[in-house]
C-alpha cells in the first residue's frame, strides 16, 4: 500500500467515524420514547410476588406479597427553560406481569437536555373526586373504592406469618392528602440511548417510622438508624386517617433512581 493510499483509507475511516457520531448525536436530539421503568424491591431484595418471603421489618415473622399496584400520575419532563406535561397522565403500575418490572412509555420526548422529571404517587384531588375515565383511571376497576371515596392510590395485599399463625396484610392507601409529588433531578443522570430511566420502588419505605424526608424537615442526622413498623401491629390500613398518614408518609422516599 502506498503512502497516499494509506492516507486515503485513514481519511475515509475518519469521515465514517465523524458521520456515525454526527448521526448518533442527531438521533439523540430527535424525540423518542421515554421509558420510566419501575423495579419493585423490599429493602435491597427484588420483590417476587407470592413465592418469596421477607422479614417483618419491625417485628417477628415473615411476609409475602400477593398483589402490588399503584397509581403514578401527572408526569412532567423539564428542560432548562421549559417543561412538558403528559396528557391524561394516570398510569396504573402493577407487578403481576411476566416481567420483573413495569414501565410507563411516554412517546415523543426529547431525551437530550432533559433536566428534571416529576410525577405524583396517587391521584390528584381533582381527578380523585370525579368518575371520569382518563388514562388508567377507571371507576369500575379494582383501584376504585366508590365514587364517594375515590381511588386507592396504592394497593398492597399479602400475608404475614408469625409462628405458623397467618395474618392477612391489606394496605389500601388513598385520600387526597396522601397524594405526593416527587421531583427527580436528571441533570447529572446518564440516560441510555434507548431512553430508559430505571427506578426503584422500595416497599420497606412505607413501613419506616422515621423517614429521611422527616429527617430533612427536622434537620436530624440522616445516618440515624431507621426504625420500622411491626406489620403485625398495623396489618391493615384502609380508612383510618391516622394509619393512612403513617403509611403514606413513606411515599416521599418510595421511589428513587436506580
Amino acid at each position: 500500500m502506498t503512502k497516499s493510499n494509506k492516507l486515503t483509507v485513514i481519511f475515509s475511516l475518519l469521515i465514517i467515524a465523524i458521520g456515525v457520531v454526527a448521526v448518533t448525536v442527531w438521533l439523540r436530539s430527535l424525540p423518542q420514547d421515554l421509558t420510566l421503568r419501575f423495579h419493585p424491591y423490599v429493602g435491597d431484595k427484588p420483590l417476587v410476588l407470592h413465592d418469596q418471603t421477607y422479614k417483618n421489618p419491625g417485628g417477628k415473622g415473615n411476609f409475602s406479597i400477593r398483589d402490588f399496584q399503584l397509581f403514578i400520575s401527572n408526569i412532567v419532563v423539564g428542560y432548562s427553560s421549559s417543561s412538558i406535561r403528559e396528557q391524561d397522565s394516570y398510569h396504573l403500575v402493577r407487578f403481576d406481569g411476566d416481567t420483573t418490572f413495569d414501565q410507563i412509555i411516554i412517546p415523543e420526548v426529547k431525551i437530550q437536555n432533559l433536566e428534571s422529571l416529576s410525577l405524583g404517587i396517587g391521584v390528584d384531588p381533582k381527578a380523585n373526586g370525579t368518575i371520569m375515565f382518563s388514562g388508567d383511571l377507571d371507576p369500575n376497576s379494582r383501584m376504585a373504592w366508590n365514587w364517594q371515596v375515590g381511588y386507592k392510590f396504592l394497593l398492597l395485599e399479602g400475608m404475614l406469618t408469625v409462628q405458623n399463625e397467618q395474618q392477612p396484610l391489606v394496605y389500601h392507601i388513598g385520600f387526597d392528602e396522601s397524594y405526593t409529588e416527587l421531583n427527580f433531578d436528571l441533570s447529572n443522570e446518564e440516560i441510555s440511548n434507548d431512553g430508559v430511566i430505571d427506578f426503584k420502588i422500595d416497599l420497606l419505605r412505607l413501613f419506616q417510622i422515621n423517614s429521611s424526608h422527616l429527617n430533612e424537615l427536622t434537620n436530624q442526622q440522616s445516618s440515624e438508624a431507621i426504625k420500622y413498623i411491626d406489620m403485625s401491629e398495623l396489618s391493615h390500613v384502609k380508612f383510618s386517617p391516622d394509619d393512612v398518614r403513617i403509611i403514606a408518609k413513606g411515599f416521599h422516599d418510595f421511589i428513587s433512581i436506580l
Partner: protein
Amino acid sequence: MRIAKIVVALLVILIAATLYILPNKKPDTHLVEFTAPFVFGRFTIPENNPLTQESVLLGRRLFYDPLLSSNNQVSCATCHKQALAFTDGLKTSVGVSGVPLAFNAMSLVNLMWGPRHFFWDGRSSSLENQAIQPIKHVDEMGRNIDELIVVLKQDDTYTKLFKQAFGEISEQGIAKALASFQRTLISSNSRYDQYLRGEITLSSKEELGRKLFMAHPDTKVILRGGNCIDCHSQFLTSGFGTAFDGFSNNGLDNDQTLQAGLFSLTKKEVHRGLFKAPTLRNIAVTSPYMHDGRFATLKDVLAHYNGGIKRSKTLSPLIIEADNIVKTQNDHISLNLNDTEITAIIAFLHTLTDKEFLANRAFSNPFMEENNHD
C-alpha cells in the same frame, strides 16, 4: 379480426372479474346504534367484527335455533333464557347428552364491559371464541361445525342472512354473529340505574344495602361494610376488567376440594380456585348461585360470606381480613353482619333487576315472532 379478438379478450376479462368480485364483494352492512351509561366506561368491539344490524339479526336467530345442536333440540337459549337474565335456573346446565355440566349457566349481560375473559374459569379470551365452544362441546350441543355449515347452507333464510352479514356461511361467521347478538344485550334501566341517573330515590333499606355493598368494613373508623365492592365494581357490578383482577377465590372450598378455576387457563398455582366474579345485574332472577350453583338463594350467598368461608391457600386476604367486629382470632372468617344488614344488602341486590331488559323484544326468540305473524 383483430378488433374481434380484443373484444373477446375484454369480455373474458370482464366475466372473470365479475365472477371473482361478486362472491368476494363485501356486503352492504349497517352499524347498530346503541346507548350505554357513560359510567360503564370504555368498551371495544373487535375490528374484524363490527357490530352490524345484519350480524345481530343473524346472531339472534342462531342463538334461538336448536338446529345448532346434534339432536336439534338444544339452542343457546335452552341454557340462557331471557326471562332469567339469560340463565337457566339449574344448578348446572344440561345439554344434549343429559349429563349435567360442570358449571352454572352464566348470565349474558353487558358483555362489552368487565373481564375480557369468558366462562367461569376465563378459558376464552373473546366472545367470538366463547360462542363456538358450547356448540362443539359433546355434552352441551354436540354439533360438528362442518355438518352444521352443510345444514345451514340448505336453509334459504340462513343463506340470505349470512350473505347480508358476511357474504358466505362459515364457522367464523357463526361465531361473529353470535358474539354480535350478545354484545347488544345491554341492561341499564334497573332501579339502581334510575337511582344513578337521579330519577328515583332508593328506600331506606335499599340505601343501607347500597352503602354496605360499596364498603370494605373498617372497625377502626366504625365503617360497616358488606365487602361486595372488593370484587364487584360499583357501576357494572361485574368483576374488574383489567388483567385477571376480575377473578377471585371467595372461600367456597378448602385446599382438599379446591377446583382448578383460572388455573386451567394460566397453569399458575396462585390461580387455583379463582373464578370469575360475575355481574350482579339481575341477580335476583339468576339463582342458583356460584360457579357450581351450590347456593339456592341470595340468603344462602350472604350466609356464606357471613361465616361460611372455607380457608385455602389462594383465599383472598381481603375476605379473611374483612370483618365488622374487631378481630380477635383468624380461625373463623366472617363479615359479622347483623340480620338487618343482610336483609338490606339483599334489598339492594333486588334493585339491580332490569324488567325492561328481561322483556325486551329485541332480545327475544325470533321464531316465536315469526309464528305469531303466520
